[in-house]
């Protein structure tokens, strides 16, 4: 007791932050989140549930979300490891395990904040050098006038909100987002179109739809008003994802395409699909194998690689996984999942460390717990 009195405020705080009670209660709270977050997936879909329960700081404003719970665990573990782990041989296993766990949570942090993932769609015989984010959207203003390339300026995150204003020195007009919905359908305009409507907005209107459980199948749409265009082009336009005929406007004598699309990441190399193969078990529809034979193209250099289930392609920081495929009357092709993840090595290292630590802990502790019963003589008597 006297020892406690002499402790400083900081020491008391550290003592508190390192107590196993914090882990105990946080783990129980994580279990509650897990149960609710998993069941809710049936109703709101995996992506939404993940955002609501696990990737959030708070759930329903006041309850701690998964990210907060894991941060608390991290702080608790860190304090325990740094300040409260006596170097005794019989605690060595615990020490190693806790270090591994800390590393795993750190990897989770890097993945949550610094990873990019999306899909790359390549028809057979064609090449692609970008991938699209699964969920994040962007508004792209594309200047088609340069002869050898398209000049693209894209706006995402806070720009995809009602009321956002988009302007840039590279184009002479201003875009204002009048309305935005994450999932829409198109309906015909009844009666005569209002005079300020332009482009597709003259014929169609956006009909808001409920969000689908498979989040990536939602089709976002927005009404934008543009000022600063040539002639009488100023007005309200309609853009939505996967528009077959892109919206083109003219300003300063140049043509610009305005697109609402999945956020696009450029790769420092290209991938060419040579052949996609799907195999099923004979006489069934059960797939046994998918693979994409591709060329990784960097300048004049080509490298042939076979991507198949459980065997991805790794190039620079990027990893390409066999994800899906498409088959249409005219062509077929592959869909690859592309991931750039700064935290991807952490689980590998931490799992080795934790396995070692837990194993050490077991060989130190378990032989002391499971021992020959003292009652044996009594039973056999």
């Amino acid at each position, binding site marked *: 007791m006297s020892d406690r009195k002499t402790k400083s405020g900081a020491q008391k705080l550290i003592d508190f932050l390192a107590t196993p009670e914090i882990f105990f209660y946080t783990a129980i709270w994580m279990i509650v989140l897990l149960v609710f977050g998993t069941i809710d997936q049936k109703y709101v879909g995996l992506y939404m549930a993940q955002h609501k329960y696990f990737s959030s700081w708070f759930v329903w404003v006041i309850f701690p979300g998964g990210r907060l719970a894991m941060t608390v665990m991290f702080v608790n573990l860190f304090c325990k490891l740094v300040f409260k782990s006596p170097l005794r041989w019989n605690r060595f296993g615990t020490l190693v395990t806790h270090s591994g766990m800390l590393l795993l949570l750190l990897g989770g942090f890097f993945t949550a904040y610094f990873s990019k993932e999306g899909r790359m769609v390549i028809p057979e015989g064609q090449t692609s050098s970008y991938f699209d984010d699964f969920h994040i959207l962007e508004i792209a203003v594309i200047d088609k006038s340069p002869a050898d390339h398209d000049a693209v300026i894209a706006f995402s995150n806070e720009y995809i909100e009602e009321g956002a204003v988009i302007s840039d020195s590279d184009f002479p007009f201003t875009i204002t987002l009048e309305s935005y919905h994450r999932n829409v359908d198109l309906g015909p305009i009844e009666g005569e179109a209002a005079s300020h409507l332009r482009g597709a907005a003259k014929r169609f209107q956006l009909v808001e739809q409920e969000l689908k459980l498979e989040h990536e199948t939602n089709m976002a749409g927005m009404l934008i008003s543009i000022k600063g265009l040539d002639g009488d082009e100023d007005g309200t336009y309609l853009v939505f994802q996967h528009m077959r005929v892109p919206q083109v406007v003219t300003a300063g004598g140049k043509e610009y395409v305005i697109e609402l699309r999945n956020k696009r990441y450029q790769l420092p190399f290209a991938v060419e699909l040579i052949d996609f193969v799907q195999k099923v078990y004979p*006489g069934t529809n059960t797939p046994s194998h998918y693979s994409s034979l591709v060329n990784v193209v960097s300048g004049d250099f080509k490298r042939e690689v076979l991507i198949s289930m459980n065997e991805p392609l790794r190039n620079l920081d990027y990893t390409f996984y066999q994800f899906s495929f498409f088959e249409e009357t005219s062509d077929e092709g592959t869909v690859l999942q592309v991931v750039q993840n700064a935290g991807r090595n952490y689980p590998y290292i931490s799992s080795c460390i934790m396995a070692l630590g837990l194993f050490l802990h077991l060989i130190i502790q378990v032989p002391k717990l499971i021992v020959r019963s003292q009652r044996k003589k009594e039973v056999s008597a």
Partner: protein
Amino acid sequence: MKTFLLSFIICLGALAAHGESYESPVKAGDLAALVVQDQGRLKPLDTYARSQLLLYRSKPTINGQSAIDWLLELWLFPEQAYERKVFRMLDEKDAIIGLGIGFNRKDPYYSFRTLSEAINERMESLRQLSEKDPEARTRAETQTLVVYRKVMQYLALSRAWTALEADITISNSALADAIGLEAGKAYTYREFMESREALAAELQALQGRQAGDNINEKESAMVDLVQVLQVKMADQSADILQVLKPEGDQDEGLWASVWGIMDGRVFSDWEASRIEELEAIYAAFKNDPFADVSGLVEAANASLTTGVRYNAELFYNKSNLFLISTLLYTFSFLLLLLSYMFNSKWVSVGSLACLVVGLLIHMGGIMMRVYIMARPPVGTLYESIIFVSAFLVLVAVVIEFIRRDTLGLILGSVAGIILNYIGSRYALDGDTNQMLVAVLNTKFWLLTHVQTISIGYSIALLAGLAAHAYLFVRVTKPDDREQQLSIFKVSYGVALVAVFFTTFGTILGGIWGDQSWGRFWGWDPKENGALLIVLWLLAVVHGRLAGRLKELSFSVALALTPITVAVAWFGVNLLQVGLHSYGFDDGTAKKLLWFCIFEVAYAFGLGLFIHFRKKPGKGSAGNKNLNTSPQTS
């Protein structure tokens, strides 16, 4: 107690002997070994027959008759077989009532004849029903379609080999000469088709005749023949049972059924030979339903180039290794009870012997499956159940060898019986040796992640069971602190091992995810299920370390661990979202709920009883200072 045990054993014997026996009019013998292609893999006809019979009857035998004999009887004596009550319709009550057939829960068996007649009367409404949106169908309507499809499949199965039967004869010698066949001799459909050009010429001549013209005997015989062939050709829809290997060295290509190749093609020599081999087998049985066809089947299998392990599979099918191991676990349990009654060392040694032999047979069964499928032991839900069961019993046996106080025996035998029983229910779904979808089709990850997490499941269950035993002992022997403490330590030790395997297995799963589809963790239900077990075990262990959980509350919490395992194992499949789902049935949710209720009632019921019970008297006071902390003991 002794009387109770005795009557329990007698009842078991009576149950085993129960069931009408049926004198089979056929004996398939080595026909069981004929290799066929089904559900994407090559297997002996025996396995195919079993999965077909399971589909209709939910049992791999029918009144003591083996599935392969049942199938042969269906082919040789269809009229007789149609009258047999093969269809078990316990789960299709609404459909049976809807079809106007009386439903009797005690005897829910129906013959093909009864069902097909009821269906024939309602063909139009069934056709409309099949066009209705599946989401809009009522439960009874869905069931009715299930019954309809089963009956149609049964019909197709019964006609699958009719093309092999030499039952077409021409009595008119002029016609026979014209076609190039022998009058009075019975021919198969294939043999007729080989004379298709001469047959077509005769048919054309007949078609040139005007109505009212007199026809001669030859023409009259031709009319009869056409009718016979038309009836025969109606079986062309029986394109079922892939039994003809495609030409070439590849066994893995798409095989054809007997009727599948009777599509008017000119047979290649290869096809003709394969068909002739089957015709020979069929003819032998037609001649004598008890014929020995071993040589003929061997000849038919001779075209296989890769090693199909059908003999091993036949042995596996016949030996019922998992049933034997379950029986041995049951004997082990009964002997253990007897050893408690008589306090006899030798009876408990007998119990251990039964458990060990049962385990060896159990592991033998798993090894046979590994050999047959040439892949690691766990790839499907069924395989995970029998593997978890075996591993749990193995660890229990190890515990028994260390402790020698029957704790391992009771844990191992009880868990072995329950898990093997659950496995046997899943085995009724059909052929348990299934091919794996593309993402699971990887030996490396099946060996690492799937194996580790399955071991994690089994040890987590064992930890929970040990906590059950602890609570039980605290209720039944409140003064025996020494035994209580000893079981408590075991449960704690096993929980630590469970933490190791579940944590490591879960992380390996994440790494597989990273290797396969690019993300370590995606909060998919199956991943969350695994994490649930890990977090639960970690919370329980850390709660104990933090002093939040005392000996009793720790044991109550640990006794609830099987709930987390069951939810992760079976529960997440009920949600049907994510990449891992692999099975769903209606009854699972209900059974899972009952299991959870039982576990909660057991853990909290006993825990509260112990907590509020009148404190033990002085007899145990001397033990109060026993150190209960597993960390420092």
